[in-house]
């Protein structure tokens, strides 16, 4: 039975209607996947030497054990966003003579083979191999790996039980921040507290039974729970959330555009993919820290321009590149309703404008790293406002792929095509090239000035540019309508 289920799974992948169409994207994704696994493996292999250098007076095993509690919390946190519960596809089996217990075992078994479980292993196994070469006892290390597998599986099944519960997510997030805070300010050392616990897995091989027993117990709890929930109206039913109505009356102040703006805001808040997009954008405010805190980058000004464009324009590129595909599921209505194309586009412009201003305000604290940082970010924000908004809207007119709004954005390439890769070129690379040229020939001031002036010119020509873009959208209308109707699975 397991074999038959798996072969169906296989067919559903290879016969899905968008396999051929987006093979290119699949290959790119596959490439990134392999790249990530390889990086993890390399990181795992190198970790021993790295830890040895940073903490020369303690065993790398001990250091890893210290941080293991954070690893677990982080993984739980990330899995909330990434891992899907593989339950929806079993509907057709309910009426066939397959035992519910078999279905339940299959669902749980399949989730054990999920790629997210492999991630940790790709890190841990190379690390363990290096340990073995450095004379750590073989039995202990091997059983340690087994123990880690037990922990990973436990995380996997705990996550299934938690089942996308917002409260748990917030709880884990707060524990993570709080714990790290306690550690950092030396109030109470979580690290030291948990280090012996996880180190025991290595030091006393018999303790390996604990995570394994825990994983088995979690599996059993899941199984019990799932077996009784395989009904259309219980587990298999897509959750419908209670609608919270808000009339966002303040949008009325924007006149005719107000109703579109309101629609966009509702779209962003009520759909999973767009909502996560906002959270991701906000997180990227911290992206600059990577560059500003490291000595290597202190003299690499173009890198800072890149960060500036990126931070102030993250929503612009994340959201903007899929305009108008966000509205794809009801695009034919939009096109036959009493909506002038220009008004529709203008509302998108104002939404992105607000995001750029907001992101710029959030990046103001970078002034801590010097006035240069503020100046660069300001120039970049202006450039984004004046030049990148029209550019990204123009490229949007090439979008023909439907987006299902209520799916998670992680690893979700829905709606993506070659356009999305092409658009990154003018949006990200061009301003950096301009900046670099003027920076190296003249000075920082000139480079920032040029970006700002370009932005202001673009802003001044906004009406004219928007007119051209509107024409472009009208021309592409029929192709978009036809494309958006094609449902990709």
């Amino acid at each position: 039975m397991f074999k038959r289920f798996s072969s169906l799974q296989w067919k559903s992948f290879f016969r899905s209607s968008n396999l051929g169409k987006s093979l290119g994207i699949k290959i790119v994704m596959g490439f990134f996947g392999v790249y990530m696994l390889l990086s993890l493996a390399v990181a795992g292999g190198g970790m021993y030497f790295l830890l040895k250098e940073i903490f020369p007076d303690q065993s790398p095993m001990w250091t890893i054990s210290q941080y293991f509690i954070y690893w677990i919390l982080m993984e739980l946190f990330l899995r909330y966003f990434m891992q899907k519960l593989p339950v929806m596809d079993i509907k057709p089996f309910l009426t066939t003579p397959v035992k519910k217990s078999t279905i339940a075992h299959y669902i749980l078994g399949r989730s054990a083979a999920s790629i997210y479980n492999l991630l940790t292993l790709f890190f841990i196994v190379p690390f363990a191999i290096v340990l073995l070469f450095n004379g750590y006892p073989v039995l202990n290390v091997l059983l340690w790996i087994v123990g880690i597998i037990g922990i990973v599986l436990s995380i996997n099944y705990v996550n299934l039980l938690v089942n996308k519960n917002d409260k748990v997510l917030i709880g884990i997030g707060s524990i993570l921040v709080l714990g790290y805070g306690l550690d950092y300010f030396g109030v109470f050392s979580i690290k030291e507290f948990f280090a012996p616990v996880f180190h025991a897995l290595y030091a006393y091989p018999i303790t390996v039974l604990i995570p394994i027993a825990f994983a088995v117990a979690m599996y059993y709890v899941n199984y019990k729970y799932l077996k009784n929930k395989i009904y259309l109206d219980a587990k298999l039913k897509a959750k419908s959330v209670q609608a919270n109505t808000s009339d966002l009356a303040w949008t009325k102040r924007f006149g005719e555009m107000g109703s579109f703006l309101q629609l966009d805001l509702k779209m962003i808040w009520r759909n999973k993919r767009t909502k996560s997009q906002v959270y991701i954008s906000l997180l990227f405010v911290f992206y600059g820290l990577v560059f500003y805190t490291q000595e290597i980058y202190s003299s690499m000004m173009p890198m800072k321009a890149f960060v500036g464009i990126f931070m102030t324009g993250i929503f612009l590129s994340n959201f903007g590149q899929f305009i108008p595909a966000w509205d794809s599921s009801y695009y034919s209505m939009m096109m036959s309703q009493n909506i002038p194309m220009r008004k529709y586009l203008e509302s998108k412009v104002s939404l992105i404008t607000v995001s750029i201003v907001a992101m710029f305000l959030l990046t103001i604290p970078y002034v801590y790293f010097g006035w240069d940082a503020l100046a660069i970010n300001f120039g970049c924000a202006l450039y984004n406002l004046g030049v990148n908004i029209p550019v990204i809207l123009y490229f949007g007119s090439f979008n023909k792929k439907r987006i299902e709004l209520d799916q998670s954005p992680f690893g979700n390439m829905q709606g993506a095509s070659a356009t999305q890769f092409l658009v990154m070129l003018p949006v990200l690379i061009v301003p950096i090239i301009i900046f670099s040229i003027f920076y190296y020939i003249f000075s920082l001031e000139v480079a920032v000035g040029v970006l700002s002036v370009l932005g202001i010119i673009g802003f001044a020509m906004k009406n004219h540019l928007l007119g051209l873009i509107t024409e472009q959208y009208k021309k592409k209308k029929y192709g978009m309508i036809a494309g958006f109707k094609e449902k990709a699975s």
Partner: protein
Amino acid sequence: MITIENLSKIYGAQQVLNIENLEIPTGQSFGLVGNNGAGKTTLFSLLLDLIQPTTGHIINNEVQVNTSENWKPFTSSFIDETFLIGYLTPEEYFYFIGDLRGQNKADVDALLAQYQDFFHGEILGQKKYLRDLSKGNQKKAGIVASFIGNPKVVILDEPFANLDPTTQIRLKQIIKDLAAQQDVTVLVSSHDLIHVTEVCERIVVLSKGEVVKDIETSAETLKELEVFFGSEKTEVVVE
């Protein structure tokens, strides 16, 4: 009101629609019937400029549909659930459509009040998003939304499909009332011969994209249609 001239639509080698001339006068209630693949939805999509005609054009109240957008203010339609915005509640959707058609909240509320019976308490005040409603209820919301803003032309594709018997009967009454207004032109397509003969003054039968019958509805119309479709069974229809 609507004039169709030399209209054709060709996909590859297949002609899906070919109408030489068709006039729909103002105020007429017009029924379109035909088997699957006969070209009903193609015709309606052309009327709404959602697809481009291969040849010919449609003139809606002196506006050529594929060159100007000025037909939009007085034309409204419900073709399928892609006309609904899934993440809005029905109320929000109605107000949004109202906004687009220059109707304030009070206007929309007044209109909705007329359709309380039709909604059967399943649409308004449910605290549910449109995407979570059943197919039938989604359809009810979409149909009523197409009445917002006093449109002069109302286009409904398969309005009776997926509705429960009570709602079908109520919808027939609603369409009749709408058609009774002198200046409103109603276009309805359906697979259900009984419903369409009851509701429409004129019935046009499409087969493989061509007009094969054009009849004023009378007591004999239903019989005539049944005979026609009964004899068509030998033809294989390609979707």
